[in-house]
């Protein structure tokens, strides 16, 4: 247990997990829609503020798990309630807590039917998402990971668009089917580690190579579907298009990150040798995702679909950064997870705001609103620039680090930088599809529909978008504080990796022979 720093004081992480759940239960007793909205906003706002205490208590000088809480749970199977944060999870935890109040605000007028259940779903989601990022017991992790499907399914299936049934069922089946083998892998790890589900103890063990490969593949299936990586991405556009705005934001900003978080938290430390052996395949899948996502986004007429496919491309960059397995790449990947959460979340909010006015997600029916919505367009322009990694915005920093990591990967192999160069078209494509969307929405052409009746953003909507813009520029211009938060943990992760590298090369050699 030397990798843990126990939390002796206030159990802040537990409060973050259970406060939304308690709020969801309390919501059952509220009757008016407006009261439900305000109450949910207060609860998620309180969680957001409380999460800042985690940041204040966080020690950036250690790679160990911090603020750890440990309670016995199911003794017969040695399952514990163990939670803690480290440099990899803290940013995602904060992203989750900070984005939730804005999801509530974004649904203020968008959701008019069955408001109470909607808000309950949001709060239950928040509990599960926070829990997933801080769980240090594999069963706890798995329970929250799966339990999340129910509220998310309901969010899409009840408040979704015309094809909500198809989209929600596809989302549920895909994700569930993917994580089934994860469960088997967890049981294997439990049996091999003296019947313990404690995640840090599973890391950096010398499992046999063949077993590692199987466990890695189980991890890969679960996480790659969640990310989603290239051949497993088909549920994403459907789910994004049909989900209500808040659902899309949660999906894009947080749920997708769980896949990449899973890679970092589980696949790399638990199956290091298999990771090294299989990384080239994952890298090329990432490249495929980047280019495929870019080209498909270029052809979309539906704004939500466009952003959804752009997510496939952006998440391809993240997995690229993770699997180049060097400090620059991994740090860039984590930063890019946060960036994608901010930028894509904001873009979905923007589309939602147009949708509330025109009741259409078609690009053609939103052309030329620039003239009548100057404030909106300002925001949209910033987020679009950020989406394709314009210098000065957050994604530039992340993508730059990832591509630098990819070059370093190629250099380390002493070869022509094929990998890094292969990812470049993705960045170009991103500029093409985002600018195309931006151009149409702002100016359009000669046959724009009459948009003169459209009202610009109201105060609530401006309040929702401003913090996103703030972070876009902050991370874009001064990313160092964010990198400092994760640096120690990433460094530690990769140092451990070095130690296993020689093993892996030998094992991979044996495999080839």
């Amino acid at each position, binding site marked *: 247990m030397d990798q843990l720093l126990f939390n002796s004081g206030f159990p802040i992480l537990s409060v973050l997990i259970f406060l939304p759940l308690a709020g969801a239960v309390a919501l059952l007793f509220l009757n008016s829609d407006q009261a439900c909205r305000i109450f949910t906003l207060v609860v998620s706002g309180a969680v957001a503020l409380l999460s800042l205490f985690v940041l204040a208590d966080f020690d950036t000088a250690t790679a160990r798990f911090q603020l750890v809480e440990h309670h016995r*749970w*199911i*003794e*017969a*199977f040695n399952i514990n309630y163990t939670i803690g944060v480290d440099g990899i999870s803290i940013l995602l935890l904060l992203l989750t807590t900070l984005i939730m109040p804005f999801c509530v605000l974004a649904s203020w007028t968008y959701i008019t039917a*069955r408001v109470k259940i909607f808000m309950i779903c949001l709060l239950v989601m928040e509990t599960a998402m926070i829990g997933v990022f801080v769980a240090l017991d594999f*069963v706890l992790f*798995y*329970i*929250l990971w*799966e*339990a999340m*499907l*129910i509220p998310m*399914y*309901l969010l899409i*299936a*009840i408040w979704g668009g015309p094809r*909500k*049934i198809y989209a*929600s*069922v596809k989302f*549920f*089946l895909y994700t*569930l*089917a993917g994580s*089934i*083998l994860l*469960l*088997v892998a967890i*049981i*294997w790890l*439990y*049996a091999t580690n003296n019947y313990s589900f404690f995640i840090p103890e599973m890391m950096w063990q010398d499992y046999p190579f063949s077993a590692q490969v199987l466990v890695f593949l189980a991890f890969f299936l679960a996480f790659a579907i969640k990310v989603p990586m290239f051949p497993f991405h088909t549920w994403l556009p459907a789910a994004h298009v049909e989900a209500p705005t808040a659902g899309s934001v949660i999906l894009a900003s947080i749920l997708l990150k769980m896949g990449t978080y899973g890679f970092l938290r589980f696949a790399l430390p638990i199956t290091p040798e298999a990771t090294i052996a299989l990384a080239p395949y994952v890298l090329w899948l990432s490249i495929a995702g980047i280019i495929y996502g870019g080209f498909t986004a270029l052809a979309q007429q539906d704004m939500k679909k466009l952003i959804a496919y752009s997510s496939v491309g952006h998440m391809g960059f993240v997995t690229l950064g993770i699997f180049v397995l060097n400090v620059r790449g991994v740090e860039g990947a984590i930063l890019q997870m946060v960036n994608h959460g901010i930028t894509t979340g904001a873009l979905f909010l923007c589309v939602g705001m147009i949708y509330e006015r025109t009741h259409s997600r078609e690009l053609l029916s939103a052309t030329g609103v620039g003239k009548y919505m100057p404030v909106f367009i300002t925001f949209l322009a910033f987020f679009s620039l950020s989406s394709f990694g314009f210098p000065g915005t957050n994604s530039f920093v992340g993508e730059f680090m990832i591509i630098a990591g990819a070059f370093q990967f190629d250099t380390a192999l002493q070869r022509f930088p094929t990998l890094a160069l292969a990812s470049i078209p993705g960045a170009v494509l991103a500029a093409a599809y985002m600018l195309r969307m931006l151009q149409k929405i702002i100016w359009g052409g000669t046959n724009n529909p009459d948009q003169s009746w459209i009202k610009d953003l109201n105060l609530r909507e401006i309040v929702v978008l401003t913090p996103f813009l703030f972070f876009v520029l902050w991370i874009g211009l001064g990313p160092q504080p964010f990198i400092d938060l994760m640096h120690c943990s990433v460094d530690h992760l990769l140092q451990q990796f070095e130690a296993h590298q020689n093993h892996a090369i030998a094992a991979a050699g044996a495999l080839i022979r």
Partner: protein
Amino acid sequence: MSFLPELTLLGVSLVFFLLSLREANGKQLHAIAAGMATLVLLSALISLKSEGELFFKAYQVDYFSQLFKVLIALGTLLVILFCDRHPGITATVQAEYYLFMFISVLGLMMLVSSVELLAIFVSLELSSFAVYIMVPMRNRHSAAGIQVEAGIKYLLFGVMATGLMLFGMSYLFGLTGSTQLAVITEQLNLSFGQPAAVVAIILVLAGFFYKLAIFPLHFWVPDVYQGSANETTAFIAAIPKLAAVALLIRLLTLVNGETEAIVGLLVVCALLSMFYGNLSALVQKDIKRLLGFSGISHAGFVLVGLLTLEHEGYATAMYYIIGYVFMNLACFLVICTIATKGENVAIEDFTGLHKRAPLLAITLSIGLFALAGIPPFVGFTGKFFLLVNAFKQGHILLVVLAAINTAIAIYYYLSIVRVTFCTDSEIREPILVGGRQKILSLLLIVIVIAMGVAPSPFLEMTSVAIQAIM
């Protein structure tokens, strides 16, 4: 004292026998039945801690049997409370209906205590024959004849299974010269290598595979589930399965030494049950039929725990079947409540349920998600523990295939939730949900969540129970 629940049941049955002699109105009968069932539950609770042997060691009273008796009594009480007038049961035989229900419960309670082959046989038949009669008691308005077909099918398949079991029992007796399970265990230890012993045990198990609806003996399930009145199906789907698991555990303790053949067979049965049940359920339109097929696959899961042949596996199998009873009853509560005329319920009939009866919609969804094995409900923890135990015994392929089955199953459960929550219907009328149904709904929801979130006390309980017989 140790025979108190059975005596109470006997008395209750007599009361209903007398009541059946005169005209009585349904409401009054129901009130009496509910009171009586409560009495039975209380008597089972009182004798929970008692221990002893009765009837020349044919009848064993221990924590294991008493715990099952409490569960059987609790399940019966819940089923009786589901609806106060039985719209699906012919009006003139309502007293008889309760009579046979209580006799069947009596048989099941005797079954879980029986440790001698003849006692097992007699108790099993007592409980089965009563249910054979309950099935065709459904009235003609709600079922246009299929209840008779169901009754006959149930009877014929049941008799066949009994025949197999008796055949196996004769082998056991022939091999060991005794009908006492304890003696048989000892004697079989000496002669276990013989194929005759394996065949004998498998044949005896078959009788209970029938009750639990394990693959080759599952044929009765869909038709009987569909043909019986809703409350009868709720009873059949839950209560006898408890007793069947109890007896399977008792019988499997016979197995030691050469176990490969039997375990292999159980693995095959478990897998076939899961795949057959889940794949067939995918295409069902009638909710009871669907739950019947899902029941087959769940029986396969229970078998995953039993085939480990060790203490923890049995304990989790027991935990799982208890959880299954409550998840299943949650679904049946909704079915019984929305079928106001006792008719069969198609999945379509749940259209717009979230508007017509929000609490029922939530109860149904939680029951279904739990059956599907989604955390944090008991279905997940149960399946997870079963898989962990099977993995510890080295059944890796079984674990993988069982896990894949959960993924198949989710589709049909989800399609019901979808109809419940995502459809609006102006044509269908709202459903009146009485105060009692509301309380039952909340109770079942709480149990399903509590057993999933805090399984420790329940596991402790089942573990102690298994300890009592090992």
